[in-house]
């Protein structure tokens, strides 16, 4: 039966996440935007709350991304870890599972602050990667650890199949060498999931992900970036100098398979893209809510029934932005719902990320415009959101990469045909 409302069983979770956004994140949002690279101590308490939520059975997921604690959902009522990326076998009964709950809760925390959401301990994107490709033994071993994700290199951005970091087997270890940049939460995390190739000549299929302990002497923090936005979240650059990693820390299958090897690593994105879309939705929601409040004080409100052209330009703009938000929101929920129900969702995940990414940039910039000096000044958070938003149309695949993924699926073209 067609129903696109927030599922009843997730409403308490959404309320909790919203409470955290309003009571914890918002009040310190500006503080850590100004104090870039300073660790937000308040988040240690937040993470304790999230742990408490999960053990109380309410469900995890007030934070960004999952932990390895995810168990297979035995029954529908259970909410597994956020971003655990589990795809359930298609059953007749429609289910609302961890993918949907993650999207809904991340939306709420990002309504508070995206940078802080990305900094919640043990909820890193690396955890989603582990959940997506690790075997059971590995999942157990990394349980409760905070994992960051290291894919990008100075010369390799969107083209993640062309990474140059190498991994060479040496006895019971792999030796990693290379350079990684743009590692979100790289300084603070306990583990860094590093993508490296076993054999550059074999292309994408030889790329594997390795879990590197943050205190590994071969993993050297080079610098922390100064950024346009999401300053509460640290973005690290690393050198890997003969970084020795135990062989059992290679995630998934150590063999190079000509078929589908890279696909395995890339599958992470099917699960993380809806999460990043949800972050964009949260930020969009924040911008719209604040702007709606400010405009109401200025005497402008939206009439949903009267045609947009018969209202003020500001009201018409708000109306159109709400419409785009709604489209992005529903595309994101659909992608998560499909994952929960075992339906392949690669294209739909990219559709969600593309629409949510561009909507959050367009909306946050337009909200600054509508609010004028108040929007542009640091007195409100609108200007901060307009800076934070840009990364959401970039990481986990830029707008252009998402359009490429969608087009290849629609047209049935390979990456060599549609470049």
């Amino acid at each position, binding site marked *: *039966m067609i*129903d696109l409302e927030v*599922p009843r069983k997730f409403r308490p979770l959404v309320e909790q996440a919203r409470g955290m956004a309003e009571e914890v994140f918002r009040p310190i949002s500006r503080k850590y935007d100004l104090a870039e690279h300073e660790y937000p101590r308040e988040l240690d308490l937040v993470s304790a709350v999230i742990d408490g939520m999960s053990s109380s059975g309410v469900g995890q997921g007030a934070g960004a991304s999952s932990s390895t604690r995810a168990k297979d959902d035995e029954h529908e009522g259970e909410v597994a870890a956020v971003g655990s990326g589990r795809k359930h076998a298609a059953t007749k009964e429609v289910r609302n599972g961890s993918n949907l709950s993650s999207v809904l809760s991340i939306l709420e925390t990002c309504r508070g602050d995206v940078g802080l959401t990305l900094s919640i301990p043990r909820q890193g994107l690396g955890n989603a990667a582990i959940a997506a490709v690790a075997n059971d033994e590995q999942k157990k071993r990394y349980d409760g650890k905070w994992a960051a994700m290291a894919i990008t290199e100075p010369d390799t951005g969107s083209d993640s199949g062309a990474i140059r970091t190498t991994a060479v087997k040496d006895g019971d270890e792999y030796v990693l060498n290379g350079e990684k940049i743009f590692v979100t939460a790289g300084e603070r995390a306990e583990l860094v999931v590093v993508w490296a190739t076993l054999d550059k000549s074999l292309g994408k299929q030889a790329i594997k992900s390795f879990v590197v302990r943050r205190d590994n002497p071969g993993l050297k923090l080079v610098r922390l970036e100064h950024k346009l936005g999401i300053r509460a979240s640290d973005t690290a650059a690393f050198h890997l100098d003969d970084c020795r990693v135990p062989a059992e820390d290679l995630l998934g299958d150590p063999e190079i398979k000509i078929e589908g090897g890279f696909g395995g690593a890339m599958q992470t994105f099917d699960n993380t893209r809806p999460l990043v879309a949800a972050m964009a939705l949260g930020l969009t929601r924040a911008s719209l809510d604040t702007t709606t409040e400010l405009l109401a004080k200025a005497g402008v409100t939206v009439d949903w*029934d009267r*045609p947009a052209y018969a209202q003020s330009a500001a009201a018409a703009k708000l109306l159109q932005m709400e419409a785009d938000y*709604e489209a992005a929101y529903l595309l994101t929920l*659909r992608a998560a719902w499909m994952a929960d129900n075992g339906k392949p969702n690669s294209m739909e995940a990219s559709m969600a990320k593309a*629409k949510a990414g561009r909507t959050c940039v367009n909306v946050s910039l337009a909200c600054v415009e509508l609010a004028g000096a108040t929007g542009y000044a640091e007195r409100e958070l609108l200007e901060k959101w307009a800076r934070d938003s840009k990364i959401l149309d970039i990481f986990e695949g830029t707008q252009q990469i998402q*359009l*490429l993924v969608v087009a290849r699926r629609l047209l049935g073209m390979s990456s060599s045909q549609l470049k």
Partner: protein
Amino acid sequence: MATTPTLADRGQRLGLRLISKAGGLPVMADPKVRGRVEKILSRGAHSGFKAQVAVGRAFKQSKGNGSAARPGPAKRRGIFDLTPTEDQQMLQSAARELADDVIRPAGAKADADRAVPADVSDAMQEMGLGLVGVPEELGGIAEERSAVAGVLVLEQLARGDMGITVSQMGTAAVATALALYGDAGQQATYLPHFTGDEPVAAAALALQEPQPLFDPFALTTTAVAQGDSLVLNGTKAIVANADRAEIFIVSAMHEGVARLVVVEASTEGVTLEDDPAMGVRAAHTGRVILTDVAVPRANLLGTADDHRDAVRRGRLAWAAAAVGTGQAVLDQVITYAQERKAFGEPIGQRQAVAFMISDIAIELDGLRLAVLKAAARLDSEADPQLIAQSVGEVRALTSTYAAQIGSAAVQLLGGHGFVKEFDNERWYRDLRGAGVLEGTLLV
């Protein structure tokens, strides 16, 4: 016309094919579902291929007995789900077949002729989809609130052709409005002329007016009480099938607010003007000019809230039609971009082309999901404010992206899109209308 019997035969075969297709499905074991399917099919058997009654029949007033019949609200399960019910899937697949086999092939000619070939309209009538908004107890096929079923059906039909869909489902809109807002007397007087053996040739829900910046809540048409009568003055524009319609439901300002009023076409003071438009030409649009038209006060249909509800349902119906036509665009441009070669390779291999197609798909799905959400909210009688916002958003998406998709449909084919060799130029014209026009359709 030599093609006429062929198309009519097709219409009949369609019903039979549905039996062969659906008959074997496990859901058909459910006696309830089977009963409803049989009902759809048997309706066709006795109502198809009857000669149409001339415009201006007399509607014998009936008091009806007891209270008006209303379909009940749908009960939510509290689970996010994009799967239609079995009943809805049945209607959807019937509409899909009709669109593929009958409507789509007739689209170009219907547009050129500004008329739906009789065989096509007969085939559609036979399927009974025009009664998707009328409850079973009033002779229709709806079991509960049917906005979701309505948008699913409209989407499929308009994937075949929007003009034909508007022409046929414009009449259905009046039946749906009577079911939703009519009192017992109005339902008893008029609905048998939609559900019975001699259905009206056409009927029209006329809300649109000609003035720029038209606001359906600030009308120039007025309905002033005089004794037991209402006297109407004003002009309604782009009215589907204006010349064939036997009943109009018009909107007019009455005591300061917009209301719906039933006006029989034969009433004195009702005159018609042709009003051909950029698109939906198969619906043969006209203007309805009301000059001191006196109707009984009892012809006021529903309340001011009901008028507001009709405006929303109309916009949602147009959006659903836009989704269908948008899907036709997407399907066609995918094939074209795969096959058409330029610079030695399929044009789809160029990002400039491929990304336009991605954008069509993204905005189309965004609109489709927003339409479903709004329809589900209507069916479950959600908070009116939530319904208002949902439909307002759907309307904004339709007016922006439907037109954009229509534009891309032509652009992607270049000159071939501009000439009538393909359907694209018609889609361009029809998709502009979907976010502009008010009323006409209803879910």
